């Protein structure tokens, strides 16, 4: 088993604004495919300055939920509301770049927004990809490409950052670094961040609110609450609760309602 220290979540005082209006809200989302219900009345909200993480086993509907929130897939039921003028930066889990097109990193980035070389270099350095402006996209490794997707999302100067498995293919040292970057983004730009991740150790350390998805929202709340939730432990075991040992408390009342996680 890999050993990693998990710093307990810091107190949640990031949101100082009085206006609790969310960046994006989804209510009662239903998505069915081939008679299979993938999302079953899911409620989600992300506020400015908040890091929300979707966890759940394979096939839990995490990516589908993200795609509905992004407007890429129309839901079969329910509503998605976005703050007017909301700018979203999105780094998908996978993206196939066809080698039929010669595409240097610089051109890939400026497709998102015209930007000068200096700004591009800043973003690339930020995600740990210096000196690659002229490299062809197809020559990047999986981890490098994932960092590039993050750089492109940041280049949009987003109000809401949506990262689907941002650690895919990124080496261990890079993972911790990227998580620090994500936390910094929130602090510096005050943007809301929606993560999808399997990496529970890091997720639980850097997240304000966890939503555990299994077709429906099976539990939601702070990382500590969720780690002790029986539903969560059924899916992921108790080791994450153990990681929060200093904070262990009796958690009798179950998980809070899905969309009521702000406290």
């Amino acid at each position: 088993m890999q050993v990693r220290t998990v710093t307990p979540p810091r107190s949640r005082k990031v949101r100082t604004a009085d206006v609790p209006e969310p960046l994006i809200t989804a209510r009662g989302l239903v998505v069915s495919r081939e008679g299979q219900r993938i999302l079953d009345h899911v409620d989600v909200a992300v506020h400015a300055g908040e890091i929300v993480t979707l966890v759940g086993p394979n096939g839990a509907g995490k990516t589908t939920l993200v795609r509905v929130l992004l407007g890429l897939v129309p839901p079969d039921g329910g509503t998605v509301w976005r703050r007017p003028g909301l700018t979203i930066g999105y780094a998908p889990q996978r993206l196939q770049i066809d080698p039929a097109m010669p595409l240097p990193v610089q051109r890939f980035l400026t497709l998102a927004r015209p930007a000068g070389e200096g700004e591009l270099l800043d973003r690339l350095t930020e995600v740990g990809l210096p000196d690659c402006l002229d490299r062809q996209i197809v020559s990047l490794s999986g981890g490098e490409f994932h960092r590039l997707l993050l750089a492109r999302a940041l280049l949009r100067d987003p109000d809401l950052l949506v990262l689907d498995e941002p650690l895919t293919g990124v080496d261990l040292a890079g993972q911790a670094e990227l998580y620090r970057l994500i936390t910094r983004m929130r602090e510096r730009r005050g943007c809301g961040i929606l993560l999808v991740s399997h990496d529970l150790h890091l997720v639980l350390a850097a997240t304000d609110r966890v939503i555990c998805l299994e077709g429906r929202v099976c539990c939601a709340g702070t990382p500590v609450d969720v780690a002790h939730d029986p539903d969560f432990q059924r899916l992921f075991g108790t080791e994450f609760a153990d990681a929060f040992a200093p904070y262990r408390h009796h958690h009798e009342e179950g998980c809070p309602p899905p969309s009521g996680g702000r406290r």
Partner: protein
Amino acid sequence: MIEPFLLRAVAVALLFAAAAGPLGAFVVWRRMAYFGEALAHSVLLGIAAGFLLGLAPAIAVLPFMLGFALLLLLLERQRLVPVDTLLAVLAHGALAGGVITVSLVGGVRTDLLGYLFGDVLAVGPSEIATVAGVALVIGGLLLVFWRPLLSATVSEELAAVEGVAVRRMRLLLVLLLALVVAAGMRVVGMLLVMALLIVPAAAARHFSRSPEAMALRASLLGCASVLLGLAGAWELDLPAGPAIALVTVTLFFLSLLAAAFGRSGRSRS
């Protein structure tokens, strides 16, 4: 003194090749070769429609091609038949139907070989105007929508999240493709028109490090093929359309060789 009909042929063929270059790059990037072939195979039906309505082929074929392109775009959404299979079915149906209709309606007026393989040495002044107009429309729209078109081609998903109207971009490309196919019908004929879209772009791929460079070089390679092909056809008394297409294909293989040698040279150094 160069004959006027030869000048007209050069002008029409150059205009077509210049417009076909960047569009051909999109065809290569988006894997729309089948789609383009299906469009090209339906040209004859448009000409037959023109005969029925008493319109000049060059004029009648434009609205017909636009309509056919829209129909193909709609049919792509169905799930009953794989898309490339359906395109092949429609392409051959349109070709066979077109040949029969033209031979029934057109009678002695029709020169079938001219439609299949082009008859660029016979273009009249009015056709120059049509092809020039088409080339201008294509060039202008490509310039205006270049970034969203490219963005939607790299990744429809990212482009959509970033606010690009990806479906409108797909529609735009398909309509431009229909226009260029209609314009190329006289130059290299419906059976060879896609060659001047796909082959120069494919040849340009090996020497280009950005999509813009590839699109531009595809145009230049297409124009070079036109000039060399027409010169060869003139000197050796060959059919012009196939001569142009053959030069393009030769340039492609030369580029492949050059790329292979360039690569091995670089890896040795």
